[in-house]
């Protein structure tokens, strides 16, 4: 499949494949290619094969969205407080930290690499932020900026090292995570922790938007999305593709608008839309535009599908690797910043709450493949929300530690298996 895709990629002009990519909702090149190639044989294949193919394509969010609905029904029946506006608000904030780190995991998974240092990067970056703000007394935004810059810097170092040595990323990044844990300990004061209560840093997660402002943002977001979809639609028509206004613009915009309005209504019944949630979705939207509509974004998919083909086409694969790791480091660092803002402090235990595994699980549950070349930033949002919905429910009902651990494990096994199944499908 990868080879077919490469031929396809070589033959088409840059602009043409952008439009092709736009045929699928999130626009992954590999999928458009696979569908173009298998389209004619569709009817001859078994139901199972077609199902697997659908999961890899337009309906890839269907299982996890269905799962979220089932999770909500399951827990709501046990305790109605689960679907209270306040708990939904909890869930959004609980999603944000893991989700932001998972967002960084997406470009890494797209190029078929792994970064096991994300939790350590987050914790160390958050500690650096505290050094800047608490010890040096500088402005909070400067602290956040230096944390994110630090994360990107570590990412560049990792990416450069892995690109140069071609050593397995999982061991290099694991080594880096240990080194960062040491660095973090040496940065912490003798007291072993920073308390940021009372500093503006806590506002990052502690702020809720006024209701009217929340609605305004929602309307702007829906309008922007509609315009984007319509532009895609127009380009697709011009390129002579058979797309309908209803399926290409109406359905996605309608679904997004309904979901967004629903969540804003619910959040407004509690304290309003949390700022951290808006930042998280904003970052995802920008990142999604980057991966689906810019050259470098598309290269991420290309490298993950067939790195040597990309290299032969004259694109520097190492530069793409560097970029993916830098992005991952920056997102991981920002995730750490959000975590500190939420907990009101940083300690040696920051990043020890299973963030690493949760971030990987979130991206994979959301539909980003561990094998490279398939996925999208939105998978981090949906996946992180799904696993948060489960752990939130189990905490609410008060399941024992045994059940929680077993569930987490089962979830990872299931998501990875589905990923492998979809990846290995005959093309």
């Amino acid at each position, binding site marked *: 499949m990868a080879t077919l895709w490469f031929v396809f990629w070589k033959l088409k002009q840059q602009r043409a494949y952008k439009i092709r990519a736009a045929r699928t909702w999130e626009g992954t090149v590999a999928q458009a290619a696979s569908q173009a190639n298998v389209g004619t044989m569709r009817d001859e294949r078994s139901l199972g094969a077609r199902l697997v193919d659908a999961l890899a394509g337009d309906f890839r969010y269907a299982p996890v969205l269905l799962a979220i609905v089932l999770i909500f029904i399951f827990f709501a029946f046990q*305790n109605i*407080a689960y679907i*209270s506006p*306040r*708990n939904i608000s*909890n869930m959004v*904030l*609980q999603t944000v930290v893991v989700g932001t780190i998972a967002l960084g995991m997406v470009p890494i998974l797209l190029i078929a690499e792994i970064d096991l240092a994300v939790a350590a990067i987050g914790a160390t970056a958050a500690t650096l932020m505290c050094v800047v703000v*608490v010890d040096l007394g500088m402005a909070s935004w400067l602290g956040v900026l230096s944390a994110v810059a630090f994360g990107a810097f570590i990412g560049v170092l990792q990416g450069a090292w892995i690109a140069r040595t071609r050593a397995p990323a999982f061991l290099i990044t694991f080594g880096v995570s240990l080194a960062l*844990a*040491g660095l973090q*300990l040496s940065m*912490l*004061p*003798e*007291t*072993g*922790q920073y*308390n*940021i*209560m*009372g*500093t503006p840093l806590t506002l990052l997660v*502690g702020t809720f938007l006024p209701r009217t402002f929340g609605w305004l943002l929602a309307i702007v977001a829906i309008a922007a999305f509609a315009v984007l979809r319509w532009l895609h639609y127009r380009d697709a028509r011009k390129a002579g593709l058979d797309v309908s206004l209803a399926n290409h613009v109406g359905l996605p915009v309608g679904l997004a608008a309904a979901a967004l309005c629903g969540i804003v209504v619910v959040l407004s019944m509690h304290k309003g839309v949390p700022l951290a949630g808006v930042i998280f979705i904003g970052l995802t939207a920008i990142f999604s535009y980057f991966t689906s509509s810019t050259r470098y974004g598309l290269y991420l998919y290309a490298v993950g599908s067939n790195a040597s083909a990309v290299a032969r086409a004259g694109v520097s694969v190492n530069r793409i690797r560097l970029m993916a790791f830098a992005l991952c480091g920056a997102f991981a660092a920002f995730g750490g910043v959000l*975590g500190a803002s*939420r*907990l*009101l*402090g940083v*300690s*040696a*235990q*920051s990043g*020890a*709450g*299973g963030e690493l595994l949760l971030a990987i699980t979130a991206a994979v549950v959301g539909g980003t493949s561990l094998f490279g070349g398939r996925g999208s930033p939105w998978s981090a949002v949906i996946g992180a929300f799904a696993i948060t919905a489960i*752990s*939130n429910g189990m*905490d*609410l009902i*008060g399941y*024992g*530690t045994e059940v*929680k651990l077993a569930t987490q494990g089962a979830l990872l096994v299931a998501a990875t298996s589905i990923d492998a199944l979809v990846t290995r499908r005959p093309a």
Partner: protein
Amino acid sequence: MKTTTHLAAALLAGAALFSPAHAQEADPALTGTIHFMLPNVTTVRFIQQDGPKFVEAMAKYAPNVKVELINAEGSAAKQQQQAEAAITAGTKAIVLVAADPSVASGILTEAKSANIPVVAYEHEAKDGPLDYFVQFGALKVGQAQGKYAAEAIAKSGAKKVARLYGNKGDFYTTAVKQGQDEHLDPMIKSGAIEIVCEDYTDGWVPSAAQKLMEQCLTKTSDKIDAIVASNDGTAAGAIAALTSQDMAGKVPVYGGQDANVEALQYILLGKQSATVLKPYGNLADAAAQVVVSVLGGKTPPASIINGEFDNGFAKIPTGYLDVVNIDKSNVSAVVDAGVWSWADICTGEAAAVPECKQ
């Protein structure tokens, strides 16, 4: 096991309590290297407090003995390798903070067969030959927490109580809970209080405790009157959850331990009720005196080895050290014990409280 906490005595004695009793003379004739084996990098007290203070105490009692600090980074297997390396290198004694108390017997057996004395420090080391044990004792800490919480709850008339335990399956978690239960169970049985939520905190991680408390508040619609945590980290997680509901300072948080700076700040700000101070310097000093006695072929002073502990293999001569309850009235005891200075404590929001302006 000794059960009294000597709370009153500790409060009255103040600074005098924290100077080591029966200080030994320095013995320059002792030479060689001993190993102080730390358990992990997340329990910062061992790295920042116990380790340096033990080195300091050894320099005082045996200036010509070299102390090596090694950290097992949370792995019992790694600790065993480190112990083997120490024995091979000809260590004179091992002071062991077990990375995992229940699987330390390998280290104990190997040390015994090489005739190396082992002194367990703070964490128990189960099912193996052990020369001495010095500890504050998790049970004792739990009892101090439980007693303080029970008395305060009885006084305030709080009814609905939420409890946060440590990591499920830890020896330390179970012992702390057992200590708390001694004081809380009678109140539960008599119906004076009702436990509305209780849960174990994965890895004692504060962010996990925060999530548990958020869910507890959601489930009860904020109707809780008191929280009993298990250490300062879990208490901090609970306070973060309360803060997001604007309830910090309105619901008392008991059950702290470690006297972390953050906890002391919360206590000064009225957001946490109490913590338990373990004067690390005293424990390090006691361990150093025991080691010096052993190296010199003597029996440690009876003022230190004041009890026994059954580690499943034998009754181990044990030194129990006193813990001190800290609340808003005696934060200065932490400073007097030399754990933190006022400059450490009085940062951020806490800098504005009266105690910090003196």
